[in-house]
């Protein structure tokens, strides 16, 4: 039997996997009954409000809280002197809960109030008087790199860091918090062999996650010293750890419960208002809700790191890239931004996973400035690096008059190749995604342009690869109940990706029962087992595997019990729709008969028929990158790589610089689409979020202050003008993925910006080197091109 036949046969046996099962959360959400973090409240709860810095950089001379404290209805006022004097941060402990002696960006928390009503809390915050002595500030990342720059963190050398992310102090660059270096082959000799050298500088802007539900936390200090937090977080266990670190409370004393989450996109991996809510709850001895406003989300949570990318390539006449030297500078803003430090490392994976370049050097530097902190953002550094690389690939093709697809194919990494960090590449189907997008994009067809007028048509392409990070772990527990229901305990928040449905499908598949039999508990760290969180497109793979193992464990226990009850060997039994039946025999028993019965029923019980609990854990070990050479200590640094191809068709007005995006095609190899409709949804939504960053989104700082921290001035894609995205799904199985599945959340965001910039070049001959690709920049590039032609 051929492999294809075998695969087809296996697939026909699958009952729920690969089917577009109705999402288990949508009905509750569409009737308004689903409770999100922002909706959550407790009786007699106080409302908290945070006093924030109006200065990008200043010394705090004095904080006068007297008027706020004495305002009727105020129950607690806190400043840095009321909370533990500790710095927090998942990678680098550099962030104070409330600023003590210095503020480092506009919007930094300085004090907080809890009051009987939000109105009183707002009034009290206004009554707090803070005396500042403004300091010189720096928001330009390349200025902040200079030795003479304003120093943002004079105490940086004393900060504690996690072992995989050591602080690398550079006396000549006092604002550099992190530096990674990769050296592969010999870049200098590579350049000496090159026929051409192509070098460029690319930039990206500060983009905001703009999750629709603003960040919010409700905290309650329990009488016995425990703390309960309700937060729509992407990672309940990460929040628990951070609260433990800040307040020096043992993790078992902290309970994090996550309601439904109105989007996160990376921002809510990090604590936002949770620590302040806990401190206010401790002080007031009442539950406190701290719900951020939209403006606070813009100014005081996180942004996608703005990057400056220098890229220099040595190219042979035939298009072989023989040497590549990249320097990537991340504007980290005022603090480590939680996972911000690892964006500086992980962006490397975006640069080494598509092309095979014999001589390669990469430096990534994360720099502190007085801008809002950069943190995790869907795409996690890959997007910014891919923006530069995929523009550069077209620049090379244009300069050498080579075919744009051909030059990409010529330099591709293949299965078995060692990449620049020493990983052995698995079979990543780049060719497949390229083919499928080209079928739609039809680059071979003659250009269909307008005969006259200012509009020009163009097509653009980009090939990218998204990694899924490691080492991480996920655990799942299933509890089978005597009414033929199974409760799945997982700490994976339903952030919107459809994960609760995916887990339900997997558990139902393994227990051979209807999907409706599965109840997903929702995260509660007191009951649900460990999970690393909703990051790095990891949950379908990690939690999917854990759910599958937990369900298999439960199935095995069901069979053992049935075997004892029926006196039939387990191997002769099968489970179907909560009934265990004998193969080629007549005996059968319902699963409900395998549980303890109360005295009003039979009172009888099967020995060993207590709770039926199945457990599953998935963990992957990988190597670490050597800080000096960037080489991985083993042949694998990530969990897997996912290839993505993006094609676009645009029209550009040469007189105004205005661009219409006509069509977007995005192909991604997901291994196995466990829920095809959800996969399509992830692709469409990821591309459109990327489209926002590509054409209009930028948090603009003026005099160090965000000037468009609202939705009238910060533009995001709207229903009008957003083109239909054609999602193309490939399924080359991932060896260890559940049913062959990989994650899909981030891949679609990685290629849209360069594809659009390349399409603008195709249409007009003009290139824009920094996103967003606004009409002003496009027009300036067109005018520059016209001048050069003269």
């Amino acid at each position: 039997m051929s492999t294809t036949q075998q695969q087809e046969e296996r697939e026909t046996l699958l009952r729920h996997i690969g089917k577009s099962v109705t999402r288990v959360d949508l009905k509750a959400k569409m009737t308004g009954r689903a409770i999100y973090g922002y909706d959550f409240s407790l009786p007699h709860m106080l409302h908290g409000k945070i006093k924030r810095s109006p200065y990008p950089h200043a010394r705090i001379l004095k904080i006068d809280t007297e008027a706020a404290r004495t305002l009727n209805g105020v129950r607690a006022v806190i400043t840095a002197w009321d909370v533990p004097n500790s710095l927090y941060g998942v990678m680098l402990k550099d962030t104070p809960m409330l600023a003590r002696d210095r503020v480092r960006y506009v919007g930094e928390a300085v004090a907080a109030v809890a009051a009987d009503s939000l109105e009183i809390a707002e009034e009290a915050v206004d009554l707090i008087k803070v005396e500042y002595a403004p300091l010189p500030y720096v928001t330009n990342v390349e200025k902040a790199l200079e030795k003479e720059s304003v120093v943002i963190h004079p105490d940086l050398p004393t900060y504690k860091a996690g072992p995989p992310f050591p602080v690398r102090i550079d006396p000549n660059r006092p604002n550099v918090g992190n530096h990674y270096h990769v050296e592969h082959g010999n870049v200098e000799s590579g350049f000496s062999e090159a026929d051409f050298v192509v070098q460029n500088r690319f930039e990206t802007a500060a983009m905001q996650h703009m999750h629709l539900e603003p960040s919010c936390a409700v905290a309650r200090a329990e009488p016995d010293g425990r703390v309960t937090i309700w937060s729509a977080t992407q990672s309940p266990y990460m929040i628990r750890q951070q609260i433990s670190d800040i307040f020096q409370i043992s993790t078992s004393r902290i309970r994090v419960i996550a309601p439904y989450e109105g989007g996160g996109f990376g921002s809510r991996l990090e604590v936002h208002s949770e620590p302040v809510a806990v401190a206010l709850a401790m002080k007031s001895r009442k539950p406190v809700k701290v719900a951020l406003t939209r403006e606070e989300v813009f100014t005081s949570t996180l942004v996608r790191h703005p990057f400056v990318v220098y890229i220099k390539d040595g190219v042979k006449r035939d298009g072989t890239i023989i040497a590549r030297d990249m320097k990537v500078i991340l504007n980290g803003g005022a603090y480590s931004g939680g996972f911000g430090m690892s964006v500086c490392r992980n962006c490397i994976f975006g640069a080494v996973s598509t092309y095979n370049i014999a001589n390669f050097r990469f430096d990534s530097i994360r720099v502190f400035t007085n801008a809002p902190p950069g943190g995790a953002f869907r795409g996690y550094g890959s997007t910014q690096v891919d923006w530069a690389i995929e523009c550069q690939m077209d620049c090379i093709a244009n300069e050498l008059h080579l075919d744009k697809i051909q030059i990409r194919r010529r330099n591709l990494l293949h299965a078995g190749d060692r990449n620049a960090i020493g990983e052995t590449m698995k079979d990543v189907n780049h060719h497949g995604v390229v083919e499928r997008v080209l079928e739609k994009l039809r680059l071979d067809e003659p250009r269909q342009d307008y005969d006259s007028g200012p509009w020009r048509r163009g097509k653009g392409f980009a090939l990218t690869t998204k990694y899924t990070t490691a080492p991480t772990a996920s655990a799942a527990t299933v509890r089978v109940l005597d009414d033929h229901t199974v409760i799945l305990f997982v700490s994976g928040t339903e952030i919107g990706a459809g994960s609760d449905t995916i887990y339900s499908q997997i558990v139902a598949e393994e227990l051979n029962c209807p999907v409706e039999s599965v109840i997903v508990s929702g995260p509660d760290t007191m009951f649900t087992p460990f999970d690393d969180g909703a990051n790095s497109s990891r949950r379908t793979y990690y939690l999917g595997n854990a759910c599958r193992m937990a369900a298999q464990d439960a199935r095995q226990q069901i069979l053992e019990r049935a075997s004892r009850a029926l006196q039939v060997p387990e191997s002769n039994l099968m489970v179907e729709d909560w009934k265990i039946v004998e193969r080629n025999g007549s005996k059968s028993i319902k699963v409900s008969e395998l549980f303890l019965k109360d005295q009003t029923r039979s009172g009888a019980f099967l020995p060993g028929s207590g709770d039926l609990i199945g457990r599953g854990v998935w963990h992957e070990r990988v190597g670490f990158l050597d800080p000096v050479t960037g080489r991985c200590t083993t042949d694998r640094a990530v969990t897997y790589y996912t290839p993505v191809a993006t094609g676009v068709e645009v029209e550009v007005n040469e007189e105004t610089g205005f661009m219409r995006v006509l069509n977007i095609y995005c192909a991604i190899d997901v291994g196995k689409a466990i829920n095809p409709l959800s996969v399509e949804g992830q692709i469409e939504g990821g591309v459109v979020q990327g489209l926002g960053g590509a054409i209009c989104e930028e948090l603009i700082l003026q005099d160090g202050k965000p000037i468009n921290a609202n939705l009238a001035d910060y533009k995001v894609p709207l229903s009008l003008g957003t083109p239909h995205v054609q999602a193309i799904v490939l399924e080359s199985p991932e060896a260890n993925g559940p049913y062959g599945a990989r994650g899909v959340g981030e891949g679609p965001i990685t290629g849209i910006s360069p594809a659009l910039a390349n399409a603008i070049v195709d249409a007009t001959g003009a290139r824009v080197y920094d996103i967003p690709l606004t009409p002003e920049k496009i027009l300036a590039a067109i005018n520059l091109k016209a001048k050069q032609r003269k």
Partner: protein
Amino acid sequence: MARARKRISLNVNGTDYSIEANPYDSLNWILREELGLTGTKRGCDTGGCGSCTVMVDGKAIYSCMYPVVKAAGKTVETIEGLSEEGDHPLQSAIVRNSALQCAYCGPGIIMSAKSLLDSNPTPTETEVREALVGNICRCTGYGKVVKSILEASIEIAKSR
């Protein structure tokens, strides 16, 4: 501090309410905090995101920008009033197509769509997109949402 609270009568989802409110309270605040109708969301307080959209006398409005005193004597429809079972054609089309993800925008989108379909039962795709232009969805890219609303319009037209 004592500020003049005002007694206001309004009808929400078919039920008459008499409430005391500050003159500056938004309809959104009253719906969520006083009446416990948290199906109507709050996303920006400045009429920028559309997650707070409800219908007042049949017209879709941003409840965060709408002073509750203005709603006195009027009829307010929120997501909770659409269909408790979730079987309104707009709800079922969105569920059938997995058209929303985090769905925080969903109640607002549905109320904008209902207001459109009440006045224009057979809209074109462009008309649907125009009706949704004040409702930001950050997860989906709008394609499946627009498709669902068009499908719902056909279903509603058939049942008429």
